[in-house]
């Protein structure tokens, strides 16, 4: 990757943004397209392809940080980290081989390790981005602590590209654990929720938890002694080929995710009792259509559930609900609830979102409607 091609790739993106600004044509920012299903449809017919802007800019393992261009394939970066005994602490889902680092940050999705380590957003140290005026700007940095100016780099995580085009991202990485083991036990959903909370109250080396179909799985990481001791405390049987299980969970390849029924994601305070959904999901077996992760803080639901009821229940519990995959007729507008797939914002907060959009992208070029239909 020479400096010249890097310069050209960035310049090409700037020119496309400036041309779009001139013509007043909104752009759909695309990395690998692996997460096209996620969020609301963008009202843009032209695509800004970022996948060509790739390459590692800086990586020194002892700094526990990496800086990469946004179009770099996530799989390549993870392979590089692995070769150096490191990993992304947030275990990002790929949702396909084409996933890029830019898409990972813009979607802001984290995997099984999230509550025990960090989210994508937590790991962002700095970004370079293009705003709607075609200006290349840098915020944050490559060092661990930085409070110079507003934190506009973490603001990009989960922004779904509505504020700017990510050019380059600096992320914190972490050492890969020395050893790991996954323990499985039979549990009811309410029993599993109680156990996950009990473990969270102790300093156990737990790095992932999941319950589905009557089985509770726990991943522990550490030295041999730490694994043996925590196995004794947690109980359960070791799961063979456990890496595969957590990857399939992260990538939504487990049986629970199969089929065309809509998939809802509930983000809740972890101790939220399972009865919080009683009004929405009638049925004798409350766990039948649920998969619970993150110590209880992330719950997946399948089925044609009423958006308003789910959102009301999640909001009342202190969290929110997202229609993660709309199901079979993704393209049919009827599949998407009024206000979009994300829980609608308070009016004051919506106004601030619009103002921020205006501050970065005054002409409304980037991914209009992708995060919320209003901007």
């Amino acid at each position, binding site marked *: 990757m020479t400096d010249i091609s890097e310069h050209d790739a960035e310049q090409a993106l700037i020119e496309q943004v400036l041309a779009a600004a001139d013509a007043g044509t909104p752009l759909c920012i695309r990395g690998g397209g692996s997460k096209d299903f996620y969020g609301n449809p963008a009202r843009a017919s032209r695509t800004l392809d970022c996948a060509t802007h790739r390459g590692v800019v800086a990586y020194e393992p002892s700094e526990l940080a990496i800086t990469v261009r946004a179009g770099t394939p996530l799989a390549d970066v993870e392979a590089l980290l692995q070769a150096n005994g490191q990993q992304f602490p947030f275990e990002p889902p790929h949702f396909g081989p084409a996933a890029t680092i830019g898409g990972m940050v813009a979607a802001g999705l984290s995997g099984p390790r999230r509550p025990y380590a960090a989210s994508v957003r937590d790991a962002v140290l700095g970004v370079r981005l293009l705003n709607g005026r075609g200006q290349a700007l840098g915020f944050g940095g490559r060092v661990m602590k930085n409070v110079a100016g507003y934190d506009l780099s973490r603001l990009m995580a989960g922004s779904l590209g509505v504020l700017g085009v990510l050019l380059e991202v600096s992320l914190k990485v972490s050492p890969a654990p020395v050893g790991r083991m996954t323990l499985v036990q039979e549990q009811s959903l309410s029993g599993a929720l109680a156990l996950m909370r009990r473990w969270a109250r102790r300093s156990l080396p737990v790095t992932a938890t999941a319950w589905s179909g009557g089985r509770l799985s726990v991943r522990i990481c550490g030295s041999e002694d730490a694994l043996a001791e925590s196995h004794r405390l947690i109980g359960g049987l070791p799961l063979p080929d456990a890496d595969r299980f957590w990857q399939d969970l992260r990538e939504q390849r487990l049986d629970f995710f199969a089929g065309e029924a809509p998939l809802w994601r509930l*983000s809740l305070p972890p101790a939220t009792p399972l009865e919080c959904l009683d009004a929405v999901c009638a049925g004798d077996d409350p766990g039948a259509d649920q998969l619970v992760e993150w110590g209880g803080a992330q719950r997946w639901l399948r089925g044609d559930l009423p958006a308003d009821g789910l959102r009301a229940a999640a909001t009342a519990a202190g969290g929110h609900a997202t229609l993660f995959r709309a199901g079979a007729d993704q393209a049919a507008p009827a599949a998407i609830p009024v206000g979009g797939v994300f829980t609608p914002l308070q009016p004051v907060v919506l106004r601030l979102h619009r103002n921020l959009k205006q501050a970065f992208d005054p002409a409304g070029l980037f991914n209009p409607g992708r995060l919320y239909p209003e901007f």
Partner: protein
Amino acid sequence: MPRIPDERPLSPQPGIIDELRRRLPTASVLSTPAELAPYECDGLTAFRQRPMVVVLPETVEQVQTVLRLCHAARVPVVARGAGTGLSGGALPLEDGVLLSLARFNRILHIDPDNGTARVQPGVRNLAITEAAAAHGLYYAPDPSSQIACSIGGNVAENSGGVHCLKYGLTVHNILRLTLIGIDGELFEVGAEALDSPGLDLLALMTGSEGMLAVIVEITVKLLPRPERAQGLLAAFDSVERAGAAVARLIASGITPAGLEMMDNPAIRAAEAFVHAGYPEDAAAVLICELDGFNAEVSFEVMRVRELLLDAGATEVRTARDDAERLNFWKGRKAAFPAVGRLSPDYYCMDGTIPRRELATVLKRIEALSEHYGLRVANVFHAGDGNLHPLILYDANVPGELDKAEDFGGDILELCVQVGGTVTGEHGVGVEKLNQMCVQFDSDELTQMHAVKAAFDPHGLLNPGKAVPTLHRCAEFGAMHVHHGELKFPELPRF
């Protein structure tokens, strides 16, 4: 006396004082010179300015009233927590209202099952941990000022502490904020869950230095007390070796809860003050803490000990018990006041650099110290690469404060040169406005001003702080060029 950086034309509106008195309890409005005096500076005492009036509201509605009045009359407002900030963030404005959150001092709810606490912004950082202790929980970020500083101030500065290496900064340990905008509107960002819909305004608000909205409630994360914390103290005969040991330790795959470094002047100052038993002839000591699950800590203690010896430590002590561990920390925690005993005044800097540059930058600071004829002691968050050089000076000697400021400015520019930043945790405030011009270009600063305007179109919340005007940068740049491309050509370049 440093120049007060606010470049706005003054627009004094003393009429607002009467208006505030009509709407707030009598004891909540202070305006006599004697009443105002305690508010004229924060922890950066070289900058002082009395506000027009101080208000101490007690309820959310009263804060809304104050902000609505100020908004309508276009009077600037500066929020203040405990006033321990080290960059002048809470420095009042001559024609402004100082809004103290000191009376918002209640812990509203502790939820041990979810591991959270809902608190008011004026609650002291340490008070949260004290209240959570009954549940075996604690609040992780622990700035050295934790007995005094407020959690609201911590959020506004994104403060760190010695345990941030493993547990993260304030931004990683809060879930939700309730805020009031300059127009008096109440809103929430974040959630009681791990994420929230929409843009990450929680991240944006954290570290925004009171420029975007006033924080009136915070939900923080609480963590289980680690079942074991093990302290180690390692001595080195050169600062370079200590710096290299830090880089090796971090690269080894172990994440200590804290990894702090003190150089010889700091070691001697601390030893003379608290008699912690530090090796006084060492060029540097590292204080390392490993915590968590007992079996894991035991494994790590052995590895870290070997690694430090291998990296050239002349001595490695492992704390036999909690008392010895706390003794290791005693000197570190008392380092600032200890250095304060060596000199009438000191100026605490706060840059962050890549860890591999530690040795180079420390040497360079030593050379600058000779150039300026001012002593320096270094006590800092080595694991994060966050430097805190303490520049010793005497404000009563004409010109020394200016020299100390120039010296500090050079250190910060050096941090930017090696790929770091001008502030790791103390914020820009009024202190580092010039260095912001070095770190960011005019397009970037313009973008930051646009973000400010998205929240506060009239520029009434803490104006003149954190983000310099382009005008100021142009003048600062001109000054730099005037002094010549290369500052201090006589100094060795590393």
